[in-house]
């Protein structure tokens, strides 16, 4: 039975804001003996109000939320520096918080002395730290400076030493609070790699950040806090989507994100911006209101509609849009290029369409501004009205194409004498730190007939695979997944971006046969911690229901094809473990076969399907009914679905 590393049960934390400190020593003496209770007027503030969640050992949990949502309070409770007002917090293992690196450093002591002092604050003995000293010095790259007083260190050196000490302590549960927001890029990479190693070693990591990108890259699960309550909890990507979807809704109870005091948030003239929509290609102004958050693929053109409302005729109006990435990086800013218009009373909209934007996968927000009386963004004038982050766009693709901000299509030209070499692609070290370990520990019998595995794309004319956000390839009639042994249908192994274009892990299916989909209801309550029957399969449990992995493949069925073939196996089988995986194969929703897989050998299976008159695209779903756990007895509780090698029609 795998362990829960951290569990919060209905944790509440009250702060008392005292008004006026005109208290006498007499009252003070009384207060001391009454447990710090104050007299007189005071305001209460619930920083956390009934927070419940649990983290399994070995998983990385992201905690997201706006400023004041209670993240820091939660961390302080977890780190033990504060006590909850009510509720319980259980931590199985040694907790250490990177709340502030180098918190215990004394400026007059040398780096070496501070290593021991800081280690002592973290409960490590002198002898222990002595053993790790060389490692710490090497990681922090402070060999020449280690005997200098740390007051002469730069802040970067301080950080490096602090991080090195913190990691060397090897806690079971690591709490990371925004520490990666500082430091130079090279060291940040090093820290991320070190955290990935810690993760691979099975440590539980709680990661608090404002950076949705970091959660997306790094976390398995996420908890979204809003005003001291859990808004959503579950797989990181789902929670993140729910979170980002509301950053644009200015509804009740939600604080709009962005600079808290945007001086241009109030219209200064008789015209106001009322909203920004992302439109599909060709959509016009008469389209009814759409969901503000939209998905685009790299290279898609963006069509943005800026809605406005005019209360009396205005002249010399120009508009501007700005795009930011992950709430930070300024990606694009453009105005109406000197063109100014006079607008009559009423509601209206301007639409701006870009060329294809080769933006890297990420979350983008669109802001809009307007200028009056001939003022213009191009002249650097302040806007007369601005809507910050009025819409958000998720740029997604089934495959990571590039690193960095841009994901353009690339063409590589090799010299003539270069020979093409086939084989499994090298794993991305951070996105999938466990793939290597898994392969070495539990090899799956390699498939002999490698010749069969070459992908063959036989569709004559390019068509789009339905449901894919990244629409690059026409649906093939035969699809081969990877060349390695590490292609599993299940979360936690590969980010969805890492799957090949034509097969996609689409999320979880409710055990009771609920609908497909990966979005978490924003109002969903967190997993019920009181659930005593913590089944080994509830790794993907959201609001108490068990959810199982589903993969979707789009294939083209030709006129002559009458059967669907799949080559798959139960991953990670052991001789002493006869636990079978059960999967259901469906075509366009209708079941065509059910398989019980007991062996870790890739085997082809075929099922008859309805023939068609003209080539058409079919949707094949592979639903895991009964997955296996990677390590039922140990701490790694991720579930393995099924290893898919090949799907085809014949």
């Amino acid at each position, binding site marked *: 039975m795998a362990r829960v590393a951290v569990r919060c049960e209905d944790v509440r934390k009250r702060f008392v804001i005292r008004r006026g400190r005109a208290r006498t020593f007499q009252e003070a003496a009384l207060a001391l003996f009454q447990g710090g209770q104050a007299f007189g007027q005071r305001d209460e503030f619930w920083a956390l109000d009934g927070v419940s969640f649990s983290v399994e050992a070995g998983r990385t949990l992201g905690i997201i939320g706006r400023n004041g949502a209670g993240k820091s309070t939660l961390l302080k409770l977890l780190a033990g*520096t504060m006590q909850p007002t009510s509720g319980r917090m259980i931590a199985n293992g040694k907790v250490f918080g990177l709340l*502030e690196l180098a918190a215990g450093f004394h400026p007059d002591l040398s780096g070496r002395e501070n290593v021991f002092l800081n280690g002592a604050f973290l409960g490590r003995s002198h002898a222990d730290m002595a053993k790790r000293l060389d490692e710490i010095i090497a990681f922090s790259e402070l060999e020449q400076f280690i005997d200098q007083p740390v007051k002469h260190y730069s802040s970067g050196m301080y950080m490096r030493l602090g991080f090195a000490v913190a990691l060397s302590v090897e806690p079971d549960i690591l709490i990371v609070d925004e520490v990666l927001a500082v430091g130079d890029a090279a060291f940040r990479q090093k820290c991320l790699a070190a955290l990935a190693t810690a993760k691979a070693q099975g440590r539980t990591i709680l990661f608090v950040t404002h950076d949705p990108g970091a959660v997306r890259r790094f976390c398995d699960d996420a908890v979204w806090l809003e005003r001291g309550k859990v808004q959503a909890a579950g797989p990181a990507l789902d929670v993140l989507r729910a979170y980002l979807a509301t950053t644009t809704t200015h509804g009740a109870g939600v604080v709009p994100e962005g600079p808290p005091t945007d001086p241009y948030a109030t219209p200064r003239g008789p015209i106001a911006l009322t909203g920004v929509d992302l439109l599909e290609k060709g959509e016009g102004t008469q389209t009814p209101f759409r969901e503000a958050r939209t998905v685009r693929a790299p290279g898609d053109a963006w069509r943005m509609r800026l809605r406005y409302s005019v209360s009396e005729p205005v002249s010399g109006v120009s508009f501007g849009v700005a795009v930011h990435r992950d709430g930070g990086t300024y990606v694009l800013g453009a105005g109406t290029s000197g063109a100014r218009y006079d607008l009559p009373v009423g509601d209206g909209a301007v639409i701006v369409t870009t060329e294809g934007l080769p933006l890297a996968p990420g979350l983008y927000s669109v802001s809009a501004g307007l200028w009056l009386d001939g003022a213009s963004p191009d002249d650097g004038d302040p806007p007369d009205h601005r809507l910050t982050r009025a819409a958000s766009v998720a740029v997604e693709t089934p495959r990571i194409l590039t690193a960095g901000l841009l994901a353009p299509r690339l063409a590589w030209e090799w010299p003539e004498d270069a020979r093409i070499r086939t084989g499994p692609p090298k794993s991305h070290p951070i996105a999938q730190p466990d793939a290597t370990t898994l392969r070495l520990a539990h090899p799956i019998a390699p498939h002999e007939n490698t010749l069969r595995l070459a992908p063959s794309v036989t569709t004559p004319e390019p068509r789009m695979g339905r449901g894919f956000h990244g629409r690059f390839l026409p649906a093939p009639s035969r699809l081969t997944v990877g060349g390695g042994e590490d292609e599993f249908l299940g979360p936690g192994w590969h980010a969805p971006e890492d799957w090949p274009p034509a097969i996609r892990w689409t999320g979880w299916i409710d055990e009771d046969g609920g609908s497909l989909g990966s979005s978490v209801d924003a109002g969903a309550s967190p997993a019920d911690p009181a659930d005593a029957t913590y089944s080994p399969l509830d790794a993907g449990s959201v609001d108490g229901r068990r959810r199982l992995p589903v993969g979707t493949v789009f294939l083209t069925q030709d006129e002559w094809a009458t059967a669907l073939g799949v080559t798959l196996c139960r991953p990670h089988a052991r001789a002493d473990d006869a636990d079978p995986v059960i999967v259901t194969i469906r075509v366009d929703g209708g079941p065509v076969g059910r398989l019980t897989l007991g062996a870790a050998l890739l085997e082809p299976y075929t099922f008859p399907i309805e023939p068609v008159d003209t080539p058409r695209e079919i949707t094949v779903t592979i639903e895991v009914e009964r997955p296996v756990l990677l390590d039922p007895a140990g701490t790694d509780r991720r579930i393995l679905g099924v290893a898919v090698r090949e799907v085809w029609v014949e």
Partner: protein
Amino acid sequence: MPSDPISGEAPSNKGRLGDVVSVFRELWHYRDLLRSLVSRDLAVRYRRSALGFVWSLLNPLLMMLVFTIVFQVVKPQSVRNYPLFVLAGMLPWNFLAGAISGATRSVTGNAHLIDKVYFPREILPLSVVIANLVNFLLSLAVFLPLALLLGARWNGWIFALPLVILIEVMIVTGISMMLAALNVFYRDTEQVLEVALTAWFFLTPVFYELELLPNQFLGIDVWRLVYTLNPMATLVTDYRYVMLYETPIIRHTLIPFLIGIALLGAGWWAFRRVAPAFAEEV
């Protein structure tokens, strides 16, 4: 494990007697922190000074010089070997004053730590007390041979010296814990403490003999009052008895001993009771 602060196994803040064991187990677990903080204190104190540790003896020596000049020249004292007499009082007093004023600031001065890292909060005042104690013991190690050289006479009672020191440590620790906690909630503590320590200094026979206090002053027996209520008065006298005069101390020392136990218990209890709120208040 005591290192698990949020498992519910951490020592509760209710100050019950049953927690005493877990308090000490937790402190034991963090003994290296205590050691590091003490050596940090000592290292930092003399790091940039040319004379280093010598100061902890030089300081009372210079004070002794001042008192000797003032009280032998201005108002001659009948005390035999007055410089030794003053020094034997100054050293324990400096330990007390240094430890208490340092410990009072220990929690507030480390607010950044309280907020960020869990460790038993007692460590902070305790480390100050221990650092001052180490200092005191080192200066005694220099003082005792000096005293012998200058004509002090010892008998078996010199072996009672550790007991006297222990009683002072209990008193100092109790008060330090109490004030360290109080200072978190009321920063006036630091200010009041300065005055209080000065007053206490004059009520303690550091540079005069306890017997000089009047038996009759406005109808009050000041001597008896100080002797009973000020444990330091008895203790300073005891230090002199064992280190200078071969006088037995048993008769005098029961009351300071009881006061010491009471202060230690009350101080520790009060500290633990409010320690969980430190992170919110500092």
